């Protein structure tokens, strides 16, 4: 598939002759094996969408969450090794909580994502530990700073985005995200578009059933990060399914 390290990939504390740390790259592969998660920032909030693949009919619906609350105003969507992601969500929660305890106000998202990124990066330095095999998308809304969206990957860097995607279909999702004019959209409009993108990038052949997890934070929720209410989610899913059918039909006409 891709290049093999052959001897330079046994530990994170070794560089290869061409200057790569293979363990970190392998960690990013782990993220690419997981199903897609996207986050988009609009003019009054942030919306997350996660494609949760249903591996067994026995799973309880709504469990196996991939979107976490880090603080009242901060949400986090993950892709990759879920166990790694859950333990890192605890790290993020502690950072946010300690910040509020020391400084008396909500943690700014840029700072939180940098702190989590620093923590993730620390695990890429030593041979005794392995890098975290997950990426996160953090989103928050604050009345003064507005909506913010940051992504942290296994190498320990964090960047701010207007829209980003992680997981197996991230390229396809990014293409769809780039078509949106998110700076002019509101959360309500964006929720439907996020659902539509997840439906578009979902591979029916390989992956069969999936559950859509949607969450948002913005003016519409008064700055609180929460799962999108059921009726709005159902409406968004309907819009997504209908758009897909339309596109299928229009494709057939063109052919």
């Amino acid at each position: 598939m891709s290049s093999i390290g052959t001897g330079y990939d046994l530990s994170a504390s070794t560089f290869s002759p061409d200057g790569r740390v293979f363990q970190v790259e392998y960690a990013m592969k782990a993220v690419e094996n997981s199903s897609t998660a996207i986050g988009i920032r609009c003019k009054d909030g942030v919306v997350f969408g996660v494609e949760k693949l249903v591996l067994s009919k026995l799973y309880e619906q709504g469990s196996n969450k991939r979107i976490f609350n880090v603080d009242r105003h901060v949400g986090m969507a993950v892709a990759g090794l879920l166990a790694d992601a859950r333990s890192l969500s605890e790290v993020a929660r502690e950072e946010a909580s300690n910040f509020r305890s020391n400084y008396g106000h909500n943690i700014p998202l840029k700072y939180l994502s940098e702190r989590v990124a620093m923590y993730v990066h620390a695990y890429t330095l030593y041979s005794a530990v392995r890098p975290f095999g997950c990426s996160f998308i953090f989103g928050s809304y604050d009345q003064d700073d507005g909506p913010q969206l940051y992504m942290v990957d296994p190498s320990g860097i964090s960047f701010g985005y207007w829209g980003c995607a992680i997981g197996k279909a991230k390229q396809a999702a990014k293409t769809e995200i780039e078509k949106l004019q998110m700076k002019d959209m509101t959360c309500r409009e964006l929720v439907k578009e996020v659902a539509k993108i997840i439906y578009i990038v979902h591979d029916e052949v390989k992956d069969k059933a999936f559950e859509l997890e949607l969450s948002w934070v913005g003016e519409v929720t008064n700055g609180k990060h929460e799962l999108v209410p059921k009726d709005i989610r159902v409406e968004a899913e309907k819009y997504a399914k209908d758009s897909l059918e339309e596109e299928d039909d229009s494709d057939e006409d063109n052919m």
Partner: protein
Amino acid sequence: MERHLMDSKIKGVSTGTTILAVTFNGGVIIGSDSRASIGGYYVSSKTINKLIQVHDRIFCCIAGSLADAQAVTKAAKFQISFHSIQMESPPLVKAAASVLKELCYNNKEELQAGFITAGWDRKKGPQVYTVALGGMLLSQPFTIGGSGSTYIYGYADAKYKPDMSKEECLQFATNALALAMGRDNVSGGVAHLVVITEEGVEHVVIPGDKLPKFHDE
């Protein structure tokens, strides 16, 4: 309102003092006297500075044991400047006050110092916070502290108005300090005032003999 402890013989040099901070339209004025005393009998300094700058637009005034207050503000100044560099933006006044509060609360057994933190930030504009002896943090439009404050509660409550102009506020603060220094034996010297606004920080020093005089003087 809580009465700050007067100078204590155990703690040595302390600031029987008068401190205050008042918000006005567009800024905040923080002020203090300049006397340090030992035991209430000996004036160890007539010109100490009780207004400590902890960041570009945030000042603290100190009351209680001078040693404790200096140690705490030094630690707080470091923490706030580091925090500000990490945030890549000027600190919120609330954050600076919280840092002081954490120091006071976590070390309450050993410390005997109270503070008034005042400043200007982009988010909420001019603000005043009281950090009391045990570590209580309270936000107020204006506040007075120190041993001399007990003599001016009446004046302050009667004469304070919200949204004053800078000149009105300066007059209010100067009068309050003068009245307190006139009655409290452990407050005196010169009146230090700092005017903090978005534009900058302006120091005003009024020597004792130039302070406003009231009847009897």
